[in-house]
């Protein structure tokens, strides 16, 4: 049982058992193999026969030149041969990877050695291969015995990274790989035996793939890794072998050691996205298992209506008196979004699955050696990102009736940069928000376009109002196909045209019902034994701070409003016309807003506007002529 279970408040989660069938939404603790893991050099079980062991645990595992090119990979087993590189050519010497648990041998880079002859042995390898440049023709060697290119005793990989195409090749005999062979760590176990007749078996991630009568080169003293010309190479994590043929149980111990050390993604909880038949080939690590098991919440749950989000800008206002201020932006990630993700109508089994997922999120692998754990890659509801990284922070579970559950997860997004011109949360995806072109296949009121321009003031997002804004009669814009089922927008009607149908301004109208409160900023003087005396606090003493609501808006208008606010990033200034009876155009910024997706074409948005008393466009420039007289 994995230690991660200690972080769960959910009972009855067991290690994966390939002999069992599972139902959709079942949860397993995947461990590759049930049972213990054993360190290769552990001798508590008796003499293991460990002959060679290479990995990248310590810098002293390598001999290097002055440029940290590897000239030798030291064998951890004393008095056993190292893997060496005698050539002075930098092209064949691999580099030490200081921050990774592996070394990469790419292109012509290779390490080799002698003294590795055995007729019986069990080899364990943990490797991750990059995709070859020519998957149809390039075979990449993982290991090779024998000094010649042909014949040799080798394990190679070939083909595309899909089931029935990815192949493991022992000598010249191909076998279908059961797990992805590229861009994924694999444990390859080779069991070489010479009695009663020579055999060589291969296991991939604990599952036997095939068996051959091995080439005699497998008994050779010469051993080589790498040397795959023209390819990006193979990451070697761990390589060790024992003399003799180990028992099935011992093999399981050492495979599990590799699994626990290097398979951080696969180690832990998986969730069934459909009913799973019994059989080892359906375990998560294999091609067939990918159709049944997932760690991706988007594969098994969708959000329900009622999901909402709050955006808030982290600003440090600098007040300068007389109602003037400037907003200091705290770094490039000014805007944080807190989502309330609603999953309603869940059965008890679904609720168990989702709660376990939530509770297990801190077990995600770290983003890097220097950062915390990865957030949850989330396909948010429209119009937000489909690949947002969220941190699940709290959960509310409500059970209103037997087998009916509502779960609301509060999740925070931290890493979306405000300097990404393509958008933070409401992104330019060339489908919903497009780069502006003068010929479009359709155009609707509130469509959003990104307008490219060398001119800073013209560049940015524009909103199609459906009206000719500058025409005295407010005539409508183009509404139907003109030629070839396309609509042509004339230059004068373009975003920067003299009769533009587009705007960069906040043109959305709030609800009929609204509240506006005003607080006069006063300066008070309290005299002892007398009344308080009020004075006006300079000029601009009636700066407004108010909310505007946009209830029950269509998805189209909602996307447009949210894109506008997203583009302003919580601190940029824009104009807003106050409603009746004020009717005044003021400068505001919007540091906070909420959005709730009630139903299809029914969205509530509430925005907080703060009046900004300063010119929204620069009117003063540094234009002083300084003369140095002496």
């Amino acid at each position: 049982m994995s230690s991660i279970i200690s972080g769960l408040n959910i009972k009855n989660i067991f290690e994966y058992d390939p002999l069992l069938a599972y139902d959709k939404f079942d949860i397993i603790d995947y461990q590759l193999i049930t049972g213990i893991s054993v360190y290769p050099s552990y001798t508590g079980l008796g003499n293991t026969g460990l002959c060679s062991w290479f990995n990248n645990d310590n810098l002293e595992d390598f001999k290097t030149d002055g440029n940290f090119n590897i000239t030798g990979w030291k064998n951890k087993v004393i008095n056993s041969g190292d893997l060496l590189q005698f050539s002075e050519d930098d092209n064949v010497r691999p580099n030490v990877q200081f921050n990774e648990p592996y070394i990469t041998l790419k292109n012509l880079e290779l390490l080799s050695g002698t003294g590795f002859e055995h007729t019986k042995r069990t080899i364990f390898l943990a490797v991750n291969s990059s995709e070859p440049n020519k998957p149809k023709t390039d075979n990449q060697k993982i290991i090779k015995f024998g000094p010649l290119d042909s014949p040799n005793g080798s394990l190679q990989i070939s083909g595309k990274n899909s089931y029935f195409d990815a192949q493991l090749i022992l000598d010249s005999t191909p076998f279908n790989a059961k797990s992805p062979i590229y861009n994924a760590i694999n444990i390859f176990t080779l069991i070489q035996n010479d009695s009663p007749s020579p055999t060589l078996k291969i296991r991939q991630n604990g599952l036997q793939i095939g068996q051959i009568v091995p080439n005699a080169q497998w008994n050779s003293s010469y051993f080589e890794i790498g040397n795959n010309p023209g390819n990006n190479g193979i990451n070697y994590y761990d390589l060790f072998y024992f003399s003799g043929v180990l028992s099935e149980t011992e093999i399981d111990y050492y495979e599990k050691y590799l699994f626990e050390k290097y398979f951080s993604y696969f180690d832990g909880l998986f969730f069934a996205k459909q009913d799973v038949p019994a059989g080892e080939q359906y375990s998560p690590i294999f091609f067939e298992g990918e159709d049944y098991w997932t760690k991706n919440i988007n594969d098994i749950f969708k959000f329900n209506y009622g999901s909402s989000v709050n955006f808030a800008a982290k600003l440090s206002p600098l007040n300068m008196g007389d109602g003037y201020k400037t907003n200091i932006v705290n770094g490039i990630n000014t805007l944080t979004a807190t989502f309330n993700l609603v999953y309603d109508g869940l059965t008890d089994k679904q609720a168990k699955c989702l709660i376990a997922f939530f509770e297990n999120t801190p077990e995600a692998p770290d983003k890097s050696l220097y950062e915390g754990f990865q957030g949850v890659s989330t396909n948010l509801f429209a119009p937000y990102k489909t690949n947002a990284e969220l941190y699940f922070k709290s959960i509310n579970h409500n059970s209103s009736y037997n087998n009916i559950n509502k779960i609301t997860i509060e999740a925070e997004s931290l890493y979306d940069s405000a300097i990404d011109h393509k958008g933070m949360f409401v992104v330019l995806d060339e489908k919903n928000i497009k780069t502006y072109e003068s010929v479009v296949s359709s155009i609707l009121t509130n469509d959003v376009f990104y307008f490219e321009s060398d001119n800073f003031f013209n560049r940015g997002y524009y909103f199609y109002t459906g009206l000719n804004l500058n025409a005295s009669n407010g005539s409508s814009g183009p509404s139907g196909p003109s030629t070839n089922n396309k609509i042509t927008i004339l230059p004068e009607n373009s975003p920067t045209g003299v009769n533009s149908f587009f705007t960069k301004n906040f043109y959305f109208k709030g609800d009929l019902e609204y509240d506006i409160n005003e607080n006069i900023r006063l300066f008070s003087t309290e005299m002892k034994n007398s009344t308080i005396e009020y004075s006006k606090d300079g000029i601009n003493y009636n700066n407004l701070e108010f909310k505007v609501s946009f209830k029950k808006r269509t998805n189209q208008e909602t996307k447009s409003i949210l894109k506008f606010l997203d583009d302003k990033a919580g601190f940029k200034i824009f104009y807003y016309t106050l409603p009746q009876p004020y009717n005044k155009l003021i400068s505001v910024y919007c540091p906070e807003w909420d959005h709730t997706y009630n139903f299809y074409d029914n969205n509530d948005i509430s925005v907080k506007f703060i009046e900004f008393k300063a010119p929204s466009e620069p009117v003063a420039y540094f234009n002083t002529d300084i003369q140095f007289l002496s």
Partner: protein
Amino acid sequence: MSNFLSYQNIDFRFGDQNYYASSVSLSAQASVDAVLLNDGSLLNYAPNGAVVGGLSVDFYLTGSLPSFLQITGLNESPIDVSFAGVKINQVYSKSLSFSVEPFQPIIISAEFDWYGNVLLEDFNEQSKSTLQNKLIPDYIANGYKSFITTSDIEGVGFIVSFDYNMSCDRPAYFNVDEVVPFRVAKLNKTSELSIKSNSLGKILSIDGKSAITNITLKDTYGISLDLFKVSGVLTNQNYEISEGQYLLASAKITQTIPETKTLI
């Protein structure tokens, strides 16, 4: 085709099974709100939820009830229905009732919710050949031989008629961007029995009066078609006396149907 469709018989089907319906009612309801802007103008009418369809059908009981009409059971699955040329995919049962009176045929009334699209243009008259080839049912439940037994109710006399109803709420759950639910659950499952009798015994106490009843529906020849059980509490007693009539007492027995959770 004439402007008005006429039906001599209603071909009503649950799945692939014919039922002898005396009436069918189909409805659809949208919930919208006007969106008014701060300049006084009307923006549009916004939907508050999905179009919820209603379907009610009265049919003769010609055999035991199909499992999908066990309203208070665990099965939440929808069933396809069709009548008069129109097919509705996925209707969700929410109530079933019937009345048993002496010598009267027993008509089952069932109500359903449905979501999604229905091709109303498919409404069609029944063809003459279909009408002529319609099979006559072997059994029709009738009050003549049907009966109710009561136990644990003190003092109930001769029951002259009774009404049975079982129902539940069917909340619908929607994924974002969808207007057809991914689940229509069942909750608040209850069954009710109203009886009319010449006497009901003592007046009920603050916690009602415990009652266990069994209803047996039979055809006129005594063939048993279905059984219903209400094991609940009698919460209501009425006595009516009018000039020239017998004293008639009525009572209502209500049962809340629980579901014991299965440990997972």
